[in-house]
């Protein structure tokens, strides 16, 4: 885990990405009781100007990580024994990255998306397992309700949140 976090921090230090934060199940796990998952989801803000192109080229990132010894396993890039999925951030994810909480793992600094953004992100993804994680966060984590509701409204997700509460 430390090796994976060091590699991500290096991507930022070397300017290959502008920023990143941990999302997905591991981010949720930071705020809830532990549960099973397989991979580490990382959301990144790629370097360079956004040209509005539909094609986002991440090859330099993967080439750098491959030179550090990381290897493909299925659709994952395995960094320090951890299967990692790297996602270029869309506007909601970019905002989530900006607002991510600084967290340390055995002395290695990193940043983790907070519940106020994880819940909208899971609701947007909408799979059963995502909705379960949204529920776990609501039940177990300290969620800033006003902030979260602002995110839900801005990104058109408030109705999904209401549906979740009604179930």
């Amino acid at each position, binding site marked *: 885990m430390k090796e994976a976090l060091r590699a991500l921090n290096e991507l930022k230090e070397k300017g290959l990405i502008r920023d990143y934060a941990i999302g997905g199940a591991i981010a949720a796990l930071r705020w809830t*009781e532990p549960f099973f998952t*397989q991979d580490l989801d990382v959301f990144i803000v790629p370097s360079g100007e956004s040209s509005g192109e539909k094609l986002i080229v991440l090859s330099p990132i993967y080439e750098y990580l491959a030179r550090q010894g990381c290897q493909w396993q299925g659709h994952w890039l395995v960094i320090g024994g951890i299967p990692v999925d790297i996602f270029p951030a869309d506007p909601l994810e970019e905002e989530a990255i900006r607002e991510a909480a600084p967290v340390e793992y055995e002395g290695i600094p990193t940043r983790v998306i907070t519940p106020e953004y994880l819940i909208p992100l899971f609701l947007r993804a909408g799979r059963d397992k995502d909705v379960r994680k949204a529920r776990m966060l609501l039940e*177990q984590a300290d969620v800033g309700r006003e902030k979260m509701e602002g995110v839900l409204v801005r990104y058109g997700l408030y109705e999904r949140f209401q549906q979740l509460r009604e179930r």
Partner: protein
Amino acid sequence: MADEPKIVIGEHVFTREDLFRQDEEARKRRAQLPFEEKIRILVELQKLARHWGGHDVIVWKI
């Protein structure tokens, strides 16, 4: 619920609702564990999953 059966174990008397409430409180306590401890528990869960027949389960090296 007034008619809910009570469960008696020795000196302890509780209802199913009491159990669910305690379970919820325990989950919230576990949510406060250090991040490193949660990752260690995650690895134990991965090992269990592999032991129970998940041959393609990846156990993290931490």
